[in-house]
């Protein structure tokens, strides 16, 4: 795994750990690109606080600033870092223990006799 993958994921998780930034990212995800003023109207957060968080999120590459007409700056969510974070979660969300238990139960059932099983967690190599 390239070393910057983890840094990207960490920035996403750090951003999501803060409720204000979470609200900003959620608003951009659901409503599309917006200016700091738009966001201040929609969220119970001051425009100053929103501007501060947007600067941080832009620096981290999680949102991108688009310069529109009349010097209005609109912020857009960048999906690429989110996809990197998502794949980190995918490894944690995968459950093989329950399917393997179901498999052994199925084999025992179809053989018509109970059987002993041993489930062991094998060493997981880190990528």
């Amino acid at each position: 795994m390239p070393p910057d993958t983890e840094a990207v994921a960490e920035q996403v998780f750090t951003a999501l750990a803060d409720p204000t930034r979470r609200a900003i990212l959620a608003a951009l995800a659901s409503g599309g690109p917006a200016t700091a003023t738009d966001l201040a109207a929609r969220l119970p957060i001051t425009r100053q606080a929103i501007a501060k968080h947007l600067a941080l999120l832009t620096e981290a590459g999680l949102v991108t600033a688009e310069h529109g007409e009349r010097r209005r700056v609109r912020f857009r969510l960048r999906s690429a870092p989110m996809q990197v974070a998502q794949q980190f979660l995918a490894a944690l969300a995968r459950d093989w223990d329950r399917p393997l238990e179901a498999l052994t139960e199925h084999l025992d059932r179809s053989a018509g006799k109970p059987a002993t099983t041993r489930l062991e967690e094998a060493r997981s190599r880190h990528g």
Partner: protein
Amino acid sequence: MGFPDRIERTVEVAHPPDKVWAALTTSDGLAAWFGNEATIDLRPGGPAWMRWTDGFRVDMRVERVEEPRVFGFTWQIYGLPKDDPRRTYVEFTLEPAGAGTRLTVVESGFAQLPDDAHGKAYDANTQGWASELGELVDYLDAA
């Protein structure tokens, strides 16, 4: 420190490899323990899918068939959007262990990067994954 690229589990079952093989590689077998409904075309490149009663469906592609030792398939990474080209590779290995079977499942490929994270085109991403998978299969075939 990094998140795992692969997940590995080993389980010992008190049934011979041919019984385990049937449970892993037939429509009836898969539907009995994994999905609620399943179909599989058991040949490299063959399509397969499983569906659950809640409507969730997963599509698979059979990659490796070496009865009754190795069964491998690719499927979409859980939780990613339907159009995401990334896939993980799942390989079951069956080894006789006394009267039973030592079954190992390895799922790998969690650490693939979406190439657009590095500013490349989506097409390049799809192609990159396809060739990477080809290499993986070549490597596995040669092993």
